[in-house]
């Protein structure tokens, strides 16, 4: 009931307010009259500010279908990117559409990969993604990968491409050894979170835990249930926890 009332008031506001604005604006200020008569132009001025308050993926998708200018504004302001299937879209199209991505969620193989039902060379390589984003998103801070093939080279590229990198979560990923996490520990000075969950990690005989710097570390959370060998807890104690 009250919602219907609101709606009526809203619509009235647009017609009377807008109409009044035209009549009044035409006499004094052309820009103003244009602004008042085309509400979508008014909104364009502050649309980016409005979109900052919208974080859900569904809302953002709806916004980008409203009009061309809304599509552009949404693309500029989307900082969190979710790609549920790495083959649904190419990295090229992603970096063409979104310019300011700070956080990426990317999923690869289907879930039945957990039961060895996907052949070993099936794909879901992280490489094309990390190499495309290396130049496009220098401010990338967070990466969450699930069921992806990630190599040590990929992790090295990630380390060297994103100076402000903070969070890496790898769930059910394979293709890398302990030297990948070692590079992160060694060079990612801003690293806050490193989660290795149910990954298939190869043994490179690298004492990767002792690669964390002894001082000036930002690390708040570290988990590596799936890494079974060569964890030097003494070295970890030395980093100050």
């Amino acid at each position, binding site marked *: 009931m009250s919602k219907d009332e609101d709606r009526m008031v809203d619509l009235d*506001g647009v017609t009377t307010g807008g109409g009044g604005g035209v009549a*009044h604006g035409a006499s004094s200020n052309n820009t103003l009259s244009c602004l008042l008569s085309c509400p979508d132009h008014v909104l364009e001025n502050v649309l980016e500010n409005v979109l900052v308050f919208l974080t859900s993926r569904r809302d953002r998708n709806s*916004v980008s279908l409203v009009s061309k200018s809304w599509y552009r504004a949404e693309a500029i302001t989307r900082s969190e990117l979710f790609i*549920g299937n790495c083959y649904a879209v190419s990295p090229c199209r992603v970096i063409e559409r979104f310019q300011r991505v700070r956080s990426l969620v990317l999923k690869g193989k289907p879930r039945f990969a957990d039961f060895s039902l996907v052949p070993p060379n099936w794909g879901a390589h992280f490489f094309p993604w990390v190499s495309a984003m290396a130049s496009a998103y220098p401010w990338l801070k967070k990466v969450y990968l699930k069921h992806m093939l990630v190599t040590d080279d990929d992790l090295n590229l990630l380390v060297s491409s994103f100076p402000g990198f903070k969070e890496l979560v790898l769930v059910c990923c394979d293709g890398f050894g302990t030297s990948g996490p070692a590079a992160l520990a060694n060079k990612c000075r801003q690293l806050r979170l490193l989660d290795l969950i149910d990954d298939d990690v190869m043994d490179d005989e690298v004492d990767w835990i002792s690669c964390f710097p002894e001082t000036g570390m930002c690390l708040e959370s570290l988990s590596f249930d799936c890494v079974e060998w060569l964890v030097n807890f003494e070295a970890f104690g030395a980093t100050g926890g």
Partner: protein
Amino acid sequence: MSSTKIFLKSSDDKTFEIDETAARASETLKNIIDGGCLDGVIPLPNVSSNILPKVIEYCKKHGGDNGSSKKIANGGVDKDKEILPDYDEEEDKREKVRVDELKKWEEEYMDFDQQVLYDLMLAANYLHIKGLLDLTVEKAASMIRGRTPDQIRENFNINSDFTPEEEEEMILIEDEWDDEWAFD
């Protein structure tokens, strides 16, 4: 305590009076005042006389600090309140009352139609009044949340400039981007 009066002239040549302390809630006005180029009246060619009183009302309420109720709830802590425990509790109570009162004020203040919302957003943006911009922009965002593209267009009186073919293609693209393995 009375402060210096500032005069603001709207786009349609009407003059309004505001205290200097209140005017400082606006970054733009603050810079003009501090810049010392105050020449009697400040002209605001982008703000009409319909909306300027509403802006002044906000500035008066928020005086020197330009945050919304949320900000004041976190900040504004008295530095030496830890010295006296009794005082601490009292101050907390007063703070709560103040925040509640401000929230209620904001609710009433924000009760207006859509045209005012547009004008107020533009004015807040132009005058750099962060708290007011956040307040109005959040209201606009709430008119988008959970809505379909059609509903958003209706809410904001926007005409789509996509051709029907383009729109169909766009929907396909969005669906494609949303593609996810079942049961994942």
